[in-house]
């Protein structure tokens, strides 16, 4: 059996894998957005830029000090997370008591600023990042590079791990409680401002982590975050930011839908997620996992 519905099986498998890869990034990014939004009530418009920073730091570590991908996978999220920590501590924190729109606008401005600085320092061109895993799995119908499988597996583990952490641990319970009623949690003696800071830093580090994983697949360029984040916003509109698990499922699902569209109707692949968003708004405005709003 070489074809399915008149489509070569190899192409089908290949595109599903690419769809899962894109879906991995959609899932990790929308997960981070959901965590930030759940606790801080801010949509982090700088998320794309923070993802780009992750890739950039990984590239810089390799290019300047020859630090390998595996160390970068640990170091880059730490560095990007620290940048996020500083952003929360020195900027975002001072805007919580105001209309949420100002915190949102701050992340927009920060995104523009950081992207501008990166372009100024490193130029607007893309930098290639070598593939850390050569070879791949030969499935007789299709050849799948190991690195792609690695990305999918890691994204699954990290996103499900985050979900379990928030749903099953004590710190996760504090987070969920602070989401419902921060003042009450505070009266129990929990340092809510510090918790908000660490949560933001964690979600930003997650974006940086996604960036490191993306570096060998896409080129490392200042624009890599901007084009991704708009699609991720559409994913978030479709899934709703009310549920962590919802973000993961929606992210992977839409990645696969996008991949399949590339097989059956290639011209539509770049807009299919937006079309799904339009359909969702028409049929079920609150999104798949939305709560009200």
């Amino acid at each position, binding site marked *: 059996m070489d074809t399915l519905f008149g489509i070569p099986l190899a192409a089908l498998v290949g595109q599903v894998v690419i769809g899962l890869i894109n879906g991995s990034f959609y899932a990790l990014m929308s997960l981070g957005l959901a965590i930030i*939004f759940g606790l801080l009530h801010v*949509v982090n418009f700088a998320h794309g830029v923070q993802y780009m920073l992750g890739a950039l730091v990984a590239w810089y570590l390799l290019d300047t000090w020859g630090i390998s991908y595996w160390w970068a996978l640990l170091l880059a999220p730490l560095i990007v997370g620290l940048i996020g920590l500083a952003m929360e501590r020195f*900027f975002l924190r*001072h*805007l919580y008591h*105001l209309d*949420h*729109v*100002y915190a*949102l*606008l*701050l992340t*927009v*401005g*920060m*995104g*523009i*600023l*950081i*992207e*501008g*600085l990166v*372009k*100024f320092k490193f130029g607007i061109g893309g930098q290639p990042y070598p593939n850390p895993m050569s070879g791949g799995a030969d499935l007789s119908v299709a050849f799948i590079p190991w690195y792609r499988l690695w990305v999918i597996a890691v994204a699954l583990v990290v996103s499900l791990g985050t979900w379990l952490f928030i749903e099953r641990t004590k710190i996760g319970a504090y987070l969920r409680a602070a989401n419902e009623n921060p003042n009450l949690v505070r009266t129990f003696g929990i340092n809510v401002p510090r918790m908000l800071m660490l949560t933001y830093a964690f979600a930003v580090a997650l974006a940086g982590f996604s960036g490191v994983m993306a570096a060998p697949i896409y080129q490392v360029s200042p624009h890599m975050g*901007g084009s991704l984040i*708009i*699609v991720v*916003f*559409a994913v*978030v*509109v479709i899934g709703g930011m009310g549920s962590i698990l919802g973000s993961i499922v929606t992210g992977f699902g839409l990645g696969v839908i996008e991949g399949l569209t590339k097989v059956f109707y290639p011209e539509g692949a*770049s*807009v299919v997620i*937006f079309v799904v*968003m*339009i359909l969702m*708004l*028409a049929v079920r*405005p*609150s999104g798949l996992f939305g709560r009200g*709003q």
Partner: protein
Amino acid sequence: MTFQGKHLVWLIAALLLLLAPLAAYPLFLIKILTAALLAASVNFLVGYAGLLSFGHAMFYGSAAYVSGHVLKTWGVDALVGIAAGVLVSALLGLVTGVLAIRRQGVYFSMITLAFAQVVYFLALRLPFTGGEDGLQNVPRAPVLGLIPTDDHLAMYYVCAVIVTAAFWLIWRIVHSPFGQVLKAIRDNEPRAMSLGYRVNQYKLLAFVLSAALGGLAGSLKVMSFELATLTDVGWGTSGDALLICIVGGMATLWGPVIGAIVVIALEHSLASTPELVQIVQGLVFVLVVMLFRKGIVGQWLAWWQGRQRRQPSKPSAQEAS
């Protein structure tokens, strides 16, 4: 109606518009005018209806492409070309608005951004837009067959009249019963709903009006600069409009004008070092959000109103905005 402070502001604005070409190049002034109008359309929506749009470039850009195409291929009168662009952007506003207003707050912003991205893809792919090259050599048709616009100065005065009319329209809308209902919805949507207002219809109308105004800015731009490019539909254009809004002051009539003068002049002064433009934009963005949230006009109004309150003997003027 007696002569009040707000009338004086209009008079001064008209005088400045008339004399501005003595101080600056007409094309530079047109750039400020169109940027101010686009920002005003965003500002109207966020300031008076509480809807923060991140996708107004889609109206600006699509009107620019449509007006440019109509002027170029059909050789029609300037006003017909502009009207075509405005009409298309209003229709686009209707289609996207119906869907976008189904969600509130941040979701609304993300949806408008996503729609703008779809329009960007269309502009990249559709046959008449010229793809990466854009739409070039758009002719400057005469207005009503009488006023030639080949000269930059004449084009400037045409733009000045149209943009002033648009600002007057915004002012009238904001101070109309419709504008009052919009403000009520912005401040407390459930209450407005329980008072019997069809909230979504009001929001949709505000969105379509704002889209048409943003489109008008795009149509004037394509005629003046004789080209439409992907930059016009890109996120940068929406971001610029937002920056102008917050620098000038959200929810003020004159904020977009002052903001446009400041931001466009700033960008112009950096023309020799283009790599710095984005950094400065980002810095200004962050600075304004952190320290001067009311914007220039908003800060001035607050100071003025504070002064009025400290001097109760004087008859208090109506709000100057």
